[in-house]
C-alpha cells in the first residue's frame, strides 16, 4: 500500500462525500463510514513499515515527503480509529440537523488532514496539513451556531496566531539548514547555539501549545469543546489537540533530539523543567476549574486541558519512562475522552440538547449502556487500576518521584484527586440520583451511538489489563528516538526501580470480586424497590423536589472559586478589546474631510523633504 493512496483516499473521500450528499443521504452516510473504515484499515496495515517518499516537488522547491515509521503509525492509527468511531456516532446524532453534507465532509477533511500531519515527513507539508486542519476545525466548531460562533472565533484566532509563529520557526530552520525534511534536519541542531534552539522551541511551542491547550494558551478549548457537535468534540478532544502533542514530540525528539533537549539550561531553569512546570500548571488549574462547571461538555473540556497537561509533563520531563507515560496517556486519553464526549453526546441527543448537569439525573435506568460507558470512561480518566489511564499515570508519577521531582509528582497526583471529584460529579449528576419526570419517556441511545461507546469501553479495560501492547509500540518509538528502552512485558513493566503487573492486580480483583459476589449472592436475597421508595425519616421523598445534584461540591466551590477566575481568558479578551479600541481610534484619522486627506499627502511629502534636507538620511 502506498502512502499517497492513503492520503488521496482521505482527501478525496472528504470531497466526494460532499457531492454524494447531494444525491442521497444514505449513500453518503455509508460512504463516509466506509472511507473512515478504509482509512483505519489501511493505516493499520502500515504497522512496522518504515518508508519514506518524496511525493511532490512543485511547491516552491520544497520537497514534500511522506514517511511512515512506528511513531507516525501510532498516531495515524489512533486518529483513524477515533475518527471512524465518531463518524459512526455521528450517523444518528447529526441526522436531523441542517447542512449534514458539510458536516461529514469537514469531519473527513479534519481526519484526513490529521493523518496528513502525522504522515508528512517535512515541515512544509506538515504546516500545510496543519493549517487545513485548523480551518476545517474552525468550520466544524462553529457548526452549532449560537455560542459556538464565538467559540470558533476564539479557536481560529489562537490557532492562526500559533501557526504564524510556527511559520517563522519553520522558515528560520530552513534558512539555517537549507532543508526541512525531518531525516535531514535531525541532528543538525546539535551544533546550534542553545539560544537559537531556545528560540525555535519557543516558536514551535506557541503553535503546538495552542493546539494542545497548554496553559496559558488554553482559553479557546473550553468553549470550543463544549459548543462543537458532540461527535466532533470527541475528535477534538481525543485526537485533534493531541496533534499538538505530536508536534511537540516531533520537535523535541526528532528535530532537536533528546540529548540536546535535556542539556538545555541548568537545574530548575532548564527547558525541560520549565516545560514540565507549565505542564503541571496545566494540570492543576484546569482541574479545579472543571470542578466548578455545570455544563457537562465544558467540564469535560477543562478536563481535557488537564489531561493534556499530563501528556506534556510526561513528554517534557524526558526520561524514557515519562515519555512512555506521556505517549501512552495520549493514547488512553484519546480513548476515554472521546468515549466520554460520546456519552454526553448520547445524553444530549436523547434529551434534546440538555447538558446542564443540574437539570439531569437518574438516567441510568433509561440509558444503561451509555451509563456503563460513562462509568468506564471516568474510571479511565481517574486512572482506577485495571483501566488504561492507570498505567500511563503510574509511569509518569514513578519517574517523577524516583528522579527527585516530588513537587511535580505532587501536583500531578493532586490533579488526579481533583479528577475524581469532577468526574464523579459528571456521572452522578447525569445518571445517578433522581430521574426528573420529564425524562420518563427517554429511550436508550440508538445502536450507532452504542456501538462506539461499547467498543471504546472495552478498549479501556483491555488496554488497562494488557498495557503491554501499546507500550510495546511506544517502546519501539522510543528506541527510534535513541532513548533507553523500557523493559516491558505484556502485562506491564518490570524494572529494578518499580514494577507493575496488571495481571496480578487483575487476578486479585477478579478473584476477590467473585468471592465477595458469592457472599453477596448466598446471603438473603434483597427486594428491588423504586427510586421514590426511600428512607426519609418516616415520610416519602416528594417527587421532583429533591435534586441534590445541584451544586454538588458547593462548600468546596465556594472556597476555591474566587481564586479560579480564568484570568488568562480575561487577559486575552481585554487584549482583543484593546486591539479593537486601537483600531477604532486609528480609523479616526480617516476623518471624512478631504481637506485633511490632502494635508496628509502634503505632510508626507514635506516630512520626507524636511528629513532629507536636515539629516540627509537617504
Amino acid at each position, binding site marked *: 500500500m502506498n502512502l499517497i493512496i492513503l492520503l488521496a483516499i482521505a482527501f478525496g473521500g472528504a470531497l466526494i462525500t460532499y457531492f454524494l450528499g447531494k444525491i442521497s443521504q444514505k449513500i453518503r452516510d455509508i460512504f463516509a463510514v466506509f472511507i473512515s473504515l478504509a482509512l483505519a484499515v489501511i493505516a493499520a496495515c502500515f504497522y512496522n513499515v518504515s518508508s519514506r517518499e518524496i511525493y511532490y516537488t512543485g*511547491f516552491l522547491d520544497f520537497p514534500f515527503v511522506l514517511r511512515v515509521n512506528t511513531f507516525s503509525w501510532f498516531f495515524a492509527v489512533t486518529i483513524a480509529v477515533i475518527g471512524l468511531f465518531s463518524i459512526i456516532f455521528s450517523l444518528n446524532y447529526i441526522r436531523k440537523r441542517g447542512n449534514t453534507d458539510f458536516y461529514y465532509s469537514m469531519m473527513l477533511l479534519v481526519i484526513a488532514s490529521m493523518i496528513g500531519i502525522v504522515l508528512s515527513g517535512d515541515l512544509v507539508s506538515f504546516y500545510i496539513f496543519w493549517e487545513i486542519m485548523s480551518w476545517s476545525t474552525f468550520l466544524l466548531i462553529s457548526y452549532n451556531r449560537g455560542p459556538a460562533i464565538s467559540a470558533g*472565533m476564539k479557536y481560529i484566532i489562537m490557532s492562526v496566531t500559533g501557526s504564524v509563529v510556527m511559520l517563522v520557526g519553520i522558515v528560520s530552520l530552513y534558512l539555517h539548514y537549507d532543508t526541512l525534511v525531518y531525516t535531514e534536519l535531525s541532528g543538525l541542531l546539535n551544533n546550534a547555539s542553545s539560544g537559537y534552539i531556545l528560540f525555535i522551541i519557543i516558536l514551535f511551542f506557541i503553535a503546538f501549545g495552542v493546539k494542545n491547550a497548554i496553559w496559558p494558551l488554553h482559553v479557546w478549548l473550553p468553549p470550543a469543546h463544549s459548543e462543537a457537535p458532540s461527535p466532533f468534540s470527541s475528535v477534538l478532544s481525543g485526537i485533534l489537540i493531541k496533534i499538538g502533542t505530536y508536534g511537540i514530540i516531533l520537535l523535541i525528539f526528532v528535530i532537536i533530539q533528546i540529548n540536546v533537549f535535556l542539556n538545555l539550561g541548568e537545574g530548575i531553569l532548564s527547558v525541560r523543567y520549565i516545560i514540565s512546570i507549565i505542564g503541571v500548571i496545566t494540570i492543576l488549574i484546569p482541574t479545579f476549574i472543571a470542578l466548578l462547571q455545570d455544563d457537562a461538555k465544558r467540564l469535560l473540556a477543562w478536563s481535557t486541558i488537564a489531561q493534556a497537561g499530563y501528556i506534556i509533563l510526561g513528554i517534557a520531563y524526558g526520561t524514557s519512562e515519562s515519555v512512555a507515560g506521556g505517549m501512552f496517556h495520549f493514547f488512553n486519553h484519546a480513548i476515554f475522552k472521546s468515549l466520554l464526549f460520546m456519552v454526553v453526546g448520547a445524553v444530549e441527543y436523547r434529551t434534546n440538547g440538555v447538558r446542564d448537569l443540574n437539570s439531569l439525573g437518574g438516567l441510568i435506568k433509561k440509558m444503561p449502556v451509555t451509563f456503563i460507558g460513562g462509568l468506564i470512561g471516568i474510571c479511565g480518566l481517574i486512572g482506577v487500576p485495571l483501566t488504561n489511564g492507570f498505567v500511563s499515570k503510574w509511569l509518569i508519577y514513578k519517574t517523577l518521584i524516583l528522579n527527585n521531582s516530588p513537587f511535580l509528582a505532587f501536583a500531578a497526583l493532586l490533579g488526579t484527586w481533583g479528577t475524581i471529584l469532577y468526574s464523579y460529579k459528571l456521572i452522578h449528576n447525569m445518571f445517578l440520583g433522581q430521574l426528573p419526570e420529564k425524562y420518563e419517556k427517554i429511550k436508550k441511545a440508538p445502536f450507532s451511538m452504542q456501538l462506539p461507546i461499547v467498543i471504546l469501553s472495552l478498549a479501556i479495560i483491555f488496554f488497562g489489563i494488557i498495557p503491554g501492547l501499546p507500550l510495546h509500540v511506544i517502546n519501539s518509538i522510543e528506541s527510534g528516538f535513541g532513548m533507553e528502552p523500557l523493559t516491558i512485558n505484556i502485562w506491564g513493566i518490570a524494572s529494578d526501580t518499580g514494577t507493575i503487573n496488571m495481571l496480578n492486580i487483575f487476578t486479585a480483583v477478579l478473584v476477590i470480586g467473585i468471592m465477595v459476589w458469592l457472599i453477596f449472592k448466598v446471603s438473603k436475597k434483597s427486594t428491588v424497590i423504586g427510586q421514590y421508595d426511600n428512607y426519609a425519616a418516616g415520610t416519602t421523598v416528594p417527587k421532583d423536589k429533591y435534586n441534590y445534584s445541584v451544586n454538588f461540591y458547593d462548600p468546596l466551590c465556594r472556597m476555591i472559586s474566587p481564586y479560579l477566575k480564568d484570568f488568562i481568558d480575561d487577559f486575552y479578551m481585554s487584549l482583543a478589546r484593546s486591539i479593537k479600541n486601537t*483600531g477604532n481610534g486609528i480609523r479616526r484619522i480617516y476623518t471624512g474631510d478631504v481637506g485633511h486627506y490632502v494635508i496628509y499627502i502634503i505632510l508626507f*511629502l514635506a516630512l520626507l523633504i524636511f528629513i532629507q534636507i536636515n539629516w540627509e538620511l537617504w
Partner: protein
Amino acid sequence: MVNPVLLIVIPLGLAFVVPFFGFISKKIEKFIPFVALFFNLIVSLRLFPRVLEQPVHVSIGGFVPPFGINLVAGPIGILFTVLIALVGFLVSIYAFDYIKEKDQEKYHILYLLLLTGATGVVLTGDIFNLFVFFEILCISSYSLVAYFGDKTSIESAVKYLIQGALGSCLILMGIGLLYGQFGTLNMADLAGNIKSVHSVSIFVPLVLFITGFGVEAAIFPLNAWLPDAHSSAPSSISAVLSGIAIEVGLYAMIRVVFTLFGASSILTFLMLLGVITLLIGELCAFCQENIKRMLAYSSIGQIGLMLFALSIASSYGITGGLFQLVSHTLGKSLLFLAAGYMIYRSGSMNISSFEGMGKRMPYTALAFTIGAFSIVGLPPFIGFPGKLMIVKAALFEQEMLYTVLIFFILLATVIEGAYYFRVVQALYFKEEKNTQNQKREIAPLSILIPIFILTGFIVVIGIYPKLITDVLVSSASELLNRADYIKSVMP
C-alpha cells in the same frame, strides 16, 4: 510576431468603437470588453515564453529610445498584463448581469479604458508616457467610482479625484524636475544618469514620485480615498480597483524607486511604511461593519504587505512581494465579486445582512470563504505560499529589524484572520433574521463563471505555485538588475 503594443492599442480601438456597436445593438456593447480582454489575455500569454528569455522592446513609430517612446515587455510587465487581462476578462463576464443600469455603454468604455491604462503603465518605458497612461487609469476610475451616481459614490469620487489629481500634479512636477536636469524622459536613459539619490535635486523628484504614485498605490498616509472609493464603486469595479489599480500604482512606485532611481537607501523607510500601512489597514478593517469597506481596508493592509516584501529588495523579497500581489489580485477580486453579488441580492452592505447567505447562495458563499481563507494565508490556497515567501525573505536578511517587523506582520495577519472569519461565520453559521427569503438561489452563470475560475486559480496556484514562481523570479531579477535594464533598452 506578436507585438506588445497590441495589448494597448486593440483594447483602445475597441473602446473607441463601442458607441458604434451601440448603434447596431445595445446588447453587443457589453461583449466588447470581454472580447478585448480575451484578446489581451491570449496575446500576453503568447508573449510569455518569449519574454522569459529576453525582454521584448518595442519602439513606437520607429524611433529608437531615448528619442521615441518605447515599450518594455519584461517578465514583470507581462506578468502584470496577464493579471490585468485575466482579472479584467473575468470581471467583464461578471458585468454581463451585474451592470444593469442605463448607460451601460459608458460603463464598458470606461472599464476598458481603465484596464488599458493599467496595461500601458506596466508596459511603457517612458516616464511621461507612464504618467499619461496613469491618468487614463485614474480618470476612468474616478468616473467609475461615481458610476452609480448616488450620494455616497459621488462623494467618494470627489474625494478620490481631489487626492488623485493632487498626486498627478506631484508626479508631473517630478517629471519636470527630472527632465530639467537630464533632458530625457526615457526611464532607462534617466536611470543611466542617476547614480545616487543623495543630492536634494534628485531626491525631491523621487519623493514627488513616491508621493504621487503612493496616492494611487494607497500607501499610508496617502490612502484615505481608498476605503470610500472602493466601497462605493460598483462591486465589479471595486474588484478591479482593488485587484489591479492599486497594484499598478505600486508597480509604478516600485519601478520608479528600483529602476529609475535605484534608491536603495530609502527602502528601509518604505519597508517601515509598508508595515505601518499593513497594521493600520488591518486595524481599521477589524472595526468595520460594512463589508466592502472592510475589504477595502484589507486591501490597504495587503498593499502594505507587498510594499514591505518588495522593499526587502532581495530576490526572495521581490518574488514574495510579487507572489503576494498575484494572490491579492486574485483573492481580492474574488472577494469583491462574491461579496458584490451577495450585496446585490441582500441589498445591504452590512456584514449582518450576510447572515444565512451560505444557505441562500451556497456557491457564492463558498467562493467568498475560499477567497477569505486565501487572503488570510491559509493553505492550500494561494495566499499561503505568498506569506511563506515573505517570511522567508524577511528572515533571510538575518537582521533584528526584519525579525521584529515580521512579527508585526504576522500580528496583522491574525487581525486580518479575525475579521475575515467573522464574515465566514456570518455566512454559514448565523441564521438569517428575516426568514421569508430563505429560498435558495443560484446566481446566474455570468456571475458564477468568473467566481469559479478565480477560485480555481486560487486553489491551483495554491497547490502548485511553480506555475508562476518562475516568472516571478525573473521579474524580480528584472527589477533588481537595474544595469541590465538600462543596457537592454539603451545598448
